[in-house]
């Protein structure tokens, strides 16, 4: 809930509260300000506005407990991968991203935000690794810090389940960082399901997967040879 609060510092407070879904676009605030100026001709008016969190959302900065954000978006990601068992290279061949972000305000940009975040997530899951040396990034060039090209990623299929959120502007929730969180777990789980490897670190580069598959293969042979 947006509380718009206008204060006359000299002669007492003028306070107006407006809901975010206010269809009158703040007409009550404008009306109150006009009235104040009529009552106090020629005097300056100072104002301030503050956002109030929705009821039930609270954060305790002392104990670091509670809900830090006023609106949580949700998403589910499905990755289909192919693993080349000779080179241990993983390729994402299909990706579906479904999210609930309240009301979608700009469908083109929202879809693009998800596709971009997912592709960064694919890079994070499979190839992007910062190597540090003496406190600086050793591979700080696109020659040795690889990011996905258009040919490394599939078309990302995006769906929104819209559920307008009463405490967000225009019914919306945030969609900035959401799409980068899910791809790596989805992809790594897909590789685990496909190969029997149990990856515990990303990026799951061919080198890293090769180590894991050698272990998995070894474990399998132990299991086979057991009486």
């Amino acid at each position, binding site marked *: 809930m947006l509380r718009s609060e206008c204060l006359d510092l000299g002669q007492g407070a003028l306070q107006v509260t407006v809901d975010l879904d206010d269809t009158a676009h703040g007409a009550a605030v404008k009306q109150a300000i006009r009235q104040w100026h009529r009552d106090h001709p020629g005097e300056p008016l100072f104002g301030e506005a503050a956002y109030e969190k929705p009821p039930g959302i609270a954060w305790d900065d002392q104990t670091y407990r509670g809900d830090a954000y006023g609106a949580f978006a949700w998403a589910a990601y499905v990755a289909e991968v192919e693993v080349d068992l000779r080179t241990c290279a993983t390729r994402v061949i299909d990706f579906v991203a479904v999210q609930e972000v309240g009301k979608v305000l700009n469908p083109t940009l929202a879809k693009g935000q998800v596709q971009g975040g997912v592709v960064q997530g694919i890079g994070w899951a499979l190839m992007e690794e910062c190597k540090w040396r003496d406190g600086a990034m050793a591979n700080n060039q696109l020659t040795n810090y690889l990011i996905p090209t258009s*040919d490394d990623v599939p078309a990302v299929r995006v769906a929104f389940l819209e559920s307008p959120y009463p405490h967000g502007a225009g019914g919306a929730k945030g969609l900035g960082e959401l799409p980068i969180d899910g791809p790596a777990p989805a992809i790594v789980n897909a590789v685990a399901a496909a190969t029997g490897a149990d990856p515990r670190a990303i990026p799951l580069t061919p080198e890293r997967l090769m180590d894991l598959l050698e272990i998995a293969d070894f474990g399998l042979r132990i299991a086979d040879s057991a009486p």
Partner: protein
Amino acid sequence: MSGHSAIRNPQSAISIAFTLNGEPVSLGVDPAARLLDTLRYQLALTGTKEGCGEGECGACTVYLDGLPVNSCLVPTYQVRGRRVETVEFLDPGALEPFERCGATQCGACTPGVVMAAWWIREHPDLLGTHSIRELMAGNLCRCTGYDGIIDSVEEALGERGKGKGEG
């Protein structure tokens, strides 16, 4: 990175003449100047962007004798007598599908992407052997996830659905 193509020693400047966006140009350049810096800082054609500066990202794509090249890797003196076209040479209408399909977010890759896309448009026979995703792989984009770019190239080509997948 490169001292922005200022001529460090005037006595070592090289005089060259070439065709830039259809017009003859002659100027003195530092022997070490990159075409990218000459375009941006001597000729004020700032549409061409520097991304990585090492030929990986394609943001600085220009046409050299009709071929797309990374202008960060071209010493300016090498374009003597040749033909250079930059993104400023394209019809502004070329950008329209890119705006409509969400091919642009931060915009740093966009000039290079548009140059590559237009080159594909001028050479449609390439699509017989390569997908759009393969042909656009020399232009890195960090924001869009490429789907908006692929969609707009398809729109620009007027043949939707020829890419590897549909978004």
